């Protein structure tokens, strides 16, 4: 970590991958070694424009480069989408707690993801499969609005489902002609017998409405509230528990999260909005 927590270090965008009409993955190389734990987030600076929080989508094992998948949504992300290779950026962090991967050991891990929510999940997935023998199974249930909106297509339809110990199903809300898979929101492919509910953890990341229904479904299936892990990304600005933008009740999402169990935050109103 930098001496001054607000100061970014130099980094360069060395590659840009189009993932969907609104999402690109930026491959960046920080000037000096930058380590993070899966699920932690960083603040990415576009010099003179500002900074915004993102969770890297690459494996923490890769310390030379980092992938950050970004949906075009606001000012910083909009301008990032116009950048080309060679663009200088800044990066500071990592911040927050990340996924408690060690506590998943010996369990089945059910990952429910939607849309750009697959970005942090990719990092988690790569971390899990790297030591896949430590977990009973990794069960993925991913969705997007349309087939076009599914990101990481190459991996989703290529190597990931073939990995031993991985069970993967995909769905889209609306199909086009070329889609032969399931049609429906992601909860339609999560079944009560997908995993052993008494010995598993559920990780949910996606748009708020999807997280709400996936959580309700998990509770209905009998998962305990403290086995449900939610990525509660908010409007993090300082990243260090000071500026106040990301508070949920007593928690600063940037410092106490962004990963919370449902048990931790269930009593706060409007967590899904």
């Amino acid at each position, binding site marked *: 970590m930098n001496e*001054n*927590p*607000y*100061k*970014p*270090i*130099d980094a360069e965008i060395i590659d840009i991958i189009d993932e969907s009409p609104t999402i690109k993955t930026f491959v960046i190389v920080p000037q000096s070694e930058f380590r993070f734990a899966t699920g932690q987030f960083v603040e990415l*600076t576009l*010099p*003179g*424009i*500002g*900074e*915004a929080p993102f969770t890297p989508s690459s494996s923490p094992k890769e310390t030379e480069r980092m992938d950050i998948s970004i*949906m075009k*949504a*606001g*000012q*910083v*992300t909009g301008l990032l989408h116009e950048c080309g290779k060679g663009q*200088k*950026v*800044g990066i500071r962090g990592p911040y927050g707690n990340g996924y408690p991967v060690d506590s998943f050991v010996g369990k089945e891990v059910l990952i429910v993801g939607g849309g750009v929510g697959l970005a942090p999940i990719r990092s988690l997935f790569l971390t899990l499969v790297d030591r896949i023998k430590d977990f009973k199974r990794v069960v993925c249930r991913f969705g997007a609005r349309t087939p076009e909106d599914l990101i990481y297509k190459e991996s989703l339809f290529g190597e990931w489902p073939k990995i031993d110990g991985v069970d993967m199903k995909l769905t889209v809300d609306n199909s086009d002609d070329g889609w032969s898979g399931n049609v429906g929101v992601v909860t339609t492919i999560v079944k009560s017998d997908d995993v052993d509910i008494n010995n598993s953890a559920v990780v949910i990341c996606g748009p*708020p409405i999807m997280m709400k229904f996936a959580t309700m479904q998990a509770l209905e299936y009998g998962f305990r509230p403290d086995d449900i892990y939610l990525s509660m*990304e*908010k*409007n993090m*600005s*300082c990243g*260090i*528990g*000071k*500026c*106040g*933008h*990301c*508070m*949920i*009740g*007593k928690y600063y999402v940037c*410092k106490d999260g962004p990963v919370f169990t449902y048990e931790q935050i269930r009593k706060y*109103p*409007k*967590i899904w*909005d």
Partner: protein
Amino acid sequence: MPVISKIQIKNASITKTNLFKLLDLISQEKFLIAPAEGPDLEDINFLPVTGAEQICFDYENTLVPPKEYFFGQSECMFSFSPRSNESITVTDQSEELVFFGVRPCDVKAIELLDKFYERSFVDDYYLSKRACSVIISVACSQLNEECFCTSVGSGPVLTEGFDIQLIDAGNDFAVQVGSEKGLQLYEQYQDFFGAPIDVDAEKEFEKAKASEPGFDLQRVYDRLKSNKVDDRLWADIARRCQSCGLCLLLCPTCSCYTVIDRVTPNGRNLRMREWDCCYFEGFTRMAGGQNPVKPKEEMIKRKYYHKLVQQIDEFGMSGCTGCGRCNTVCVGNVNWLENIRKIEGSGRDV
């Protein structure tokens, strides 16, 4: 290192004539910040003074709290060139600032901010400015119309947490020195001070409490924490609040900000932090338009919860120090004190 190292309180006194002379000397030798009338406005604020005659001694409290000297409204943290992030940190202020006339509620507010900025991550921008400041506070001898320090344990006289505290005793002030920094200042100007005199701080407190339309903080805390407040109260506040943010900007304990970039005409990028308010609609709105703190009732509730529950839990002191500024400036006539009293009474027949 904590910004205040408490010591066992040392008592002394100073005559009002000597105090004037002392402040005059300090204003020549150091940077003195004291209540004064601005050049264009009649409002009393903490301003740099270069002579004791510029100081306003007859004031209730300043319009703007002293926090801006430690946590600037708009502060450049560092600048960097457009081509890289190689940055230059803006030089921290390192010259000693002496404050005179800070009221106990504002001293308490600074104590809260100290705790907030000292807990991880440690914020050097704030703490470096605090480290080179020393505060001579003046206890209140009467309660003003809108304030309620006795209900939140921050006045009218402090029992600890000050550098130097003056308590009015007619022709003299009783002087209490409560920290290392205060002691240094006291020793440097020792000749101005006299032998201790008696003041009955407890009597002052009881007198003030009797005249104050106070509330029981514990009860307010319990009501808010157990979510037992009548929803109609939040709806009423939400209807009247214009989201102008004035109550928060003038709050001595509010510390929210946003981190943004500004570009100078010669193309350097400035990484700024600027005051922000949780009553602004965009405060929690994310890129893409999602806003987790909606409707407005939730926004309102969040402020009351933060100051009267969360900060008590985290720092062991109220996030409201009872200065009453927010009550006097609200354009929608939202009265924080009145609402706290309604929260206290909710659940009863009122």
